[in-house]
């Protein structure tokens, strides 16, 4: 459980605290190159908070955590989970935004080395990606924060989406209402 040796000490130092918010510490990791971005296969919808880069990586992460098929056909990509998450992040929540971004950058650029792999997380095969996330979980120590945070974010917004509910036998709210309205006022 506490086998920190699997995680290079330089990587461990990137995590000053363990909560999602605290992952802002790794937000300064190198961004994708333009070439990598150009290679991205996923079309980017209109986003509020996430960059196209964040969105693309988060989509791959979400597909790893909730893939298509298996117990039920629906997967994260079917509901565009990354866009749904983006729509729920408030611009004021800078700690969360930096945390998510830091976790994504760490996973994309630094985590593959933990398993001795070269290249990016998002270019790995599905089984390799799952194995890498599970390796982060089992590495113990601070690496778990990335696993816990991204897993929590994806699961929460997937299973609160009505498209997921028939698959898990949940018949949903008894009242059908939109999000509560926050009164608009002058700036």
């Amino acid at each position: 459980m506490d086998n920190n040796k699997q995680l290079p000490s330089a990587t461990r130092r990137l995590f000053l605290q363990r909560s999602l918010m605290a992952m802002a510490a790794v937000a300064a990791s190198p961004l994708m190159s333009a070439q990598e971005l150009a290679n991205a296969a996923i079309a980017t919808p209109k986003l509020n908070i996430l960059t196209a880069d964040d969105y693309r990586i988060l989509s791959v992460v979400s597909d790893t955590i909730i893939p298509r098929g298996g117990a039920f056909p629906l997967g994260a990509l079917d509901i565009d989970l990354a866009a749904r998450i983006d729509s729920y992040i408030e611009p004021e929540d800078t700690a969360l935004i930096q945390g998510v971004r830091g976790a994504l950058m760490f996973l994309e650029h630094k985590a593959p080395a933990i398993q001795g792999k070269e290249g990016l997380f998002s270019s790995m095969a599905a089984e390799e990606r799952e194995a890498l996330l599970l390796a982060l979980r089992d590495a113990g120590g601070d690496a778990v924060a990335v696993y816990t945070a991204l897993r929590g974010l994806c699961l929460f917004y997937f299973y609160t989406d009505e498209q997921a509910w028939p698959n898990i036998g949940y018949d949903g709210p008894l009242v059908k209402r939109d999000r509560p309205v926050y009164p608009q006022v002058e700036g």
Partner: protein
Amino acid sequence: MIIQGHEIFAPLKLKTHSVVVGSGAGGGVAAYHMASAGYETVVLEEGGYFQAKDFNQREEDMMPALYRGAGRQTTTDGMIYVWQGSTFGGSTVINTADATPIDAEVLQHWQQTFGLNELTEENLAASYERVYKTLNVHRLEERILNRNNKVLLETANRLGYKAGVFNSNRKNCVGSGYCFQGCAYDAKQGTNLTYLPMASELGARIYTDVRVDRIERLSGSKYRVHGSVVERGTRRFRHPVEIDCERIIMAAGTVHTPAILKRSGFDKGLPQLGKNISLQPQIGMSAIFSDSDKMTSWRGAPQSIYMSEFDDHRAEHGLGGFRMEGVGGMAGIFSHFSNSIGHDHKRMMQQYPNTQFSALLVPDQPTGTMDWEWGPDGKVKPKIQYTPTEEWKQRFKRGFKTAAEFLFEAGAKEIHCNSAVFGPITSADQLSRIDDFPIEPGMVALTSAHVQGSCRIGLNADVGVVDQNLQLHNLDNIYVVDGSVMPTTASTHTMIPIMVMADRAMHKLAHGA
């Protein structure tokens, strides 16, 4: 009268007799007593005004609207979620309406350890009567109990363990199951439907979307409250607020009441301010039963039955031991309960209808501390420092083992918990794995819905922040009536204890007895 922030278009300057800061369990009671005694009363609530028509029974919408920090407030190490309501009615809007009194052993503990001889069952009796009547406290009706909870009672009865059905402050509950997201049926009798409308009817003015930032001391034990009208949702500053008054009643909750006092410079001479925090941490557990055994955890009163065989409440330490309670109704949060991802996780979620959810509550001693920082926008950033003691960790593991054993006895096939690293327990002979359960930041997500103690009652300023009448030790005319005053955790659920303590002090202040 209820005035919402968006109805205020200019700086607000008022004069009144009493200002109540916060509108939750303590604030609601205080507002009512002040207004009923004829004092001109203003209530200031940072959160927004939401009503039954706004509650859409969805976690992702209601947590940002009703919870402090959208439900993401944690201890500084991120290990324990500290849940608090932040809305008109405070945490009483999002709680599960379990009504429990302060345990007799807790009062004895407070008398023996802290010398609080005025807080006796006898002296609190009239307050219980008033609070119970106002909130319609009664035993939960059989018709709204679900199998998710009843399985605890049935199993306890079979094993000869103590267990029971909660008393509750509901009226005409339809058993929708969405208490954590606010009651869309006006059945849960929080302060939003009881004390606050009663106070308003008696002339109190209740402002929502108004944050109190600090208090200035004027001459003659009078005060000026400085605050901000904030935008709903973002809580961005909109207009300044200044209210001159003779009396201030703090009820902003355990985390924010001491923050306001500190920012006002009132912490000088109060060495206990922000100390002695208890969180009463709990862990969520899920137990998968056979396909045919439908728990339908999301319908019915969510937290209606407890198994209390292992409570160990004593005058020496107050609450002790551990207990199980049924919980239910949140697919988003409960999807975290396991360590898996991918197809394994999907297989587990497919069993949601036959999964039973419970909480293991492990009372603690008051060992945490708090500090705060303020952003340039005036928003407070709490730093809740809390490390469970070794004794607590051992008791937690004992509790976890007992709870898992109990759930297997009930018929569970597989048990998970809110730890992203601890794998499922699939038979009773794996219980020894719990000896190595990682109670460490990042490894487990515990929850506290009962943060208490940052302004505890004590006989003098060396040992407490307020006296037995809940007045600050170092200043006249400032009272604290929320969860922060509890010297140790008051009960397994804290709403009624807070209201009863607030009622006693405020009734005495308002009516002289």
